[in-house]
């Protein structure tokens, strides 16, 4: 039997603590001269976007490592990170829309980074959809690994195309929708702590999500334990009973 998977307590505690710290800093840092308090949205929006790309980078590395080392533990890391990445991408898009509506009165500003994030959201949603369609763990790991690589390698290409495209349609504006200039060191600290806090949250989610995967595998194995009949045994000699 595989080693007992200990339930780990520290992730939730660490996440709560670091988020609390980030929240207080975000609240006490000075308002922006132009944006006013709206700038505080940035302290969650930017970290969320940063974590989305970190998560997809981990999926990229995990996918390559699986194809090389052929160990399912890499596949688990890639899959967990993709799932968390899709969550953070969704959060980034939601926050981007809140920012857009509050700052520009429009939910979707077609700003380069937001558009790019939306595209990545669908690429990795496809990754999760692909994983759901295959049940053989080895086949699923193989296919997901290739898509994990294709998805990541495409990011620079998608990035350039969107940024160039955005460059053509850049409406003249005082503040580029991508974000205001950082005016005060306190703001920088708040932003930095926000990113650190979100990274702690990412690591905690990864640890717990992989713990869940181990448990699911052990549940799967338990069902298939020694007494699990070979598929063939389900077929028995036909017994036609009182046939004519």
């Amino acid at each position, binding site marked *: 039997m595989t080693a007992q998977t200990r339930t780990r307590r520290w992730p939730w505690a660490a996440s709560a603590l670091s988020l609390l710290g980030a929240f207080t800093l975000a609240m006490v840092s000075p308002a922006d001269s132009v944006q006013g308090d709206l700038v505080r949205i940035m302290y969650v929006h930017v970290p969320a976007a940063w974590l989305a790309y970190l998560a997809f980078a981990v999926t990229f590395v995990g996918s390559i490592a699986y194809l090389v080392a052929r160990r399912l533990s890499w596949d688990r890391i890639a899959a967990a990170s993709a799932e968390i990445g899709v969550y953070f991408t969704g*959060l980034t898009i*939601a926050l981007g829309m809140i920012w857009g509506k509050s700052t520009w009165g429009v939910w979707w500003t077609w700003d380069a980074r937001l558009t790019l994030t939306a595209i990545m959201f669908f690429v990795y949603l496809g990754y999760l959809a692909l994983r759901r369609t295959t049940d053989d763990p080895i086949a699923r790991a193989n296919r997901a690994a290739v898509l994990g690589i294709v998805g990541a390698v495409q990011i620079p290409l998608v990035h350039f195309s969107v940024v160039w495209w955005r460059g053509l349609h850049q409406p003249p504006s005082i503040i580029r929708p991508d974000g205001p200039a950082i005016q005060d060191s306190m703001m920088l600290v708040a932003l930095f702590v926000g990113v650190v806090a979100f990274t702690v949250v990412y690591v905690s989610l990864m640890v717990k999500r992989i713990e869940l995967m181990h448990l699911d595998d052990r549940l799967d194995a338990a069902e298939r334990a020694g007494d699990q009949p070979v598929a063939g045994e389900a077929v028995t000699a036909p017994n036609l009973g009182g046939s004519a």
Partner: protein
Amino acid sequence: MSHWGWVALAYGVTYGSLAAFAASIAIRIRKTRTTLGENQ
């Protein structure tokens, strides 16, 4: 809506969704553990 209204919405969405995501994992962990017949 006032600036603080938007900020509250943004943080509400952030922490609310984080809590929901974390909870969904924690619940599934507990459920799988019980079916495996282990205590926490």
